[in-house]
């Protein structure tokens, strides 16, 4: 047990620390914490034309979302779209960025240039990315159409963002392109913690390329892998907003109306703040569930390489 002197010191340090932390905590609480609580309270209220009617309708907003025939189908559709988008995007990002990281892990002359190139999509702002791909997908003069036409793969120019079957894929492709570099760097960092001698030992043990990857590299990369999955899922649920905003605005029809877009629409196009806030709470819940599932399901005993040092 700590002596009285030690306890006094502890309390003094605590007071001192909080004095230092005060400005930062104030920022975060004022601009995030307070609005968050307020948001929860909004979800329980009724809003017409952006103005509170003063009626506290408790859980009606939530029920409407889940059951009301004018709202619920939209909501469930947005869930489907969101999940589809998230699953495909996260898988694509993880697989591609892992591949790129493995490539960059081989030390060869071009690997540094490759690293520099990878910084570019990361640095480009979301909306700018959307604008770039909007131009590439352009149904009249876009370069994607142009390329396919030139190569003789299509007979005529077609639209991507106007086609309900293709629109989501267009967004996925643009999204994946931007977010691969970040994960690639994370994977690369993880790969670099595996000492070369483990690979050499596997080589001496006659493990082929695939066996080495699946039985050595991947298991040792598990902690990083989890982290990338969690981060990418959080991103996928939110960061597509700029793309949807510019490229499809949720359409055509409801083909690309993700939950994030629906919230935006409900809140600012239709000014149904109460409903929007309720949906936002659902979105946050979904995120929390995903993260929890990952941390529990993918977290068996981790055997890090740090366990044995020479």
């Amino acid at each position, binding site marked *: 047990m700590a002596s009285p002197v030690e306890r006094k010191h502890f309390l003094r340090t605590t007071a001192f620390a909080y004095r230092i932390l005060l400005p930062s905590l104030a920022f975060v609480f004022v601009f995030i914490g307070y609005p968050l609580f307020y948001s929860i309270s909004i979800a329980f209220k009724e809003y017409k034309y952006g103005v509170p009617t003063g009626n506290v309708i408790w859980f009606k907003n939530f029920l409407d979302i889940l059951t009301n025939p004018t709202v619920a189908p939209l909501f469930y559709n947005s869930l489907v779209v969101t999940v589809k988008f998230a699953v495909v995007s996260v898988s694509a990002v993880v697989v591609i960025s892992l591949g790129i990281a493995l490539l960059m892990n081989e030390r060869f002359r071009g690997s540094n240039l490759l690293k520099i190139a*990878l910084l570019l999509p990361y640095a480009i702002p979301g909306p700018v990315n959307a604008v770039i791909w909007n131009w590439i997908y352009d149904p009249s003069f876009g370069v994607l159409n142009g390329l396919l036409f030139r190569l003789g793969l299509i007979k005529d120019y077609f639209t991507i963002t106007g086609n309900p079957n293709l629109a989501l894929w267009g967004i996925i492709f643009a999204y994946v392109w931007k977010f691969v570099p970040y994960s690639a760097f994370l994977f690369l960092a993880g790969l670099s913690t595996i000492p070369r001698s483990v690979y050499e030992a596997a080589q001496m043990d006659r493990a082929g390329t695939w066996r080495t990857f699946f039985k050595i590299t991947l298991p040792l990369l598990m902690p990083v892998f989890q982290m990338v999955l969690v981060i990418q899922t959080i991103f996928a649920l939110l960061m597509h907003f700029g793309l949807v905003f510019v490229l499809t605005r949720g359409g055509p029809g409801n083909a690309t109306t993700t939950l994030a877009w629906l919230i935006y629409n409900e809140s600012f196009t239709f000014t149904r703040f109460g409903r929007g806030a309720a949906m936002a709470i659902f979105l946050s819940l979904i995120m929390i569930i995903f993260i929890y599932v990952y941390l529990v399901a993918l977290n068996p005993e981790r055997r890090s390489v740090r366990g044995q040092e020479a």
Partner: protein
Amino acid sequence: MTLFADSISGRKRRKQIFTLVGTLVVAAYILAPIAWVIVSSFQKEVALEERPPHFLPGPEILTLSHYGFIFTGNVPKDATIMIQAMYTMSGTFILPAIINSIIIALFVTLVNVVLGLPAGHAFARYRFYGNRPVFLLLLATRLLPAISIIIPMYILLQQFNLLDTKRALVGIYSAITLPFTIWILKAYFQNIPVEYEEAARMDGCGYFRTLLRVVIPLARPGIIAAAIFAFMTAYDEFVFATVLTHTMTSKTQTVVIAALAQGLSASRGLIAASAVVCLLPPVLLSLLLRKYVVQGLTARFL
């Protein structure tokens, strides 16, 4: 598998081919969209409206008029009336919007460094009541989607007459970026031996002097990395900016370029050029300071 596989030299050759092809494919994948938008931005509007597009434009198609418009507002005189009409008013706003974005991002970076540094240091060095929970709580705020708090934010700002101000955005962005900055710096400090600071205390330095003369110089790479991330996050931000700004007093480049791209009759070349100009600040920043960016991206594994 192939006849090369059974010898070291064969294997080496196969690997070289593989990495070469792989690198080319990846490089093409990454650079193609960027290259295309740059090439497009230098082409005359008429050239951009042709099928198929000009992948490698010859000099007769090239022009600087799009960039000219962005920077000076002069519509190219040799263009047809129809094309002139495409240079909509909103096209002139790109430059002021970028300036807004940069100003906001700079202030946000300043706040992050000034507040985040002592905070990260405190979390790393001091044992105090609630150290871990408060830190985790700070990190948890990053998990919140902007959408969740945008509604109350709008209402609140409206009440305080802070809609459409740069100040409001600086405040919000600081709140968003601080937790991450503090996280990076905390991790960085934990990797610097505390003995340096202890020696400084023995040499008579008080809290601020230790911070100024010892801690900051030692943590420079981490500070730069955190600053870069804060800047880029603030520069890129879209959701809050879209909702909370109305006029050019505070509109940032994300908002303007999104609006520009949706304009039904906007000049494509202008859009391309605007996109290029918008992406220049963060891209240049990342390239020049790439050492720090890469370090920051991989810092958690130290």
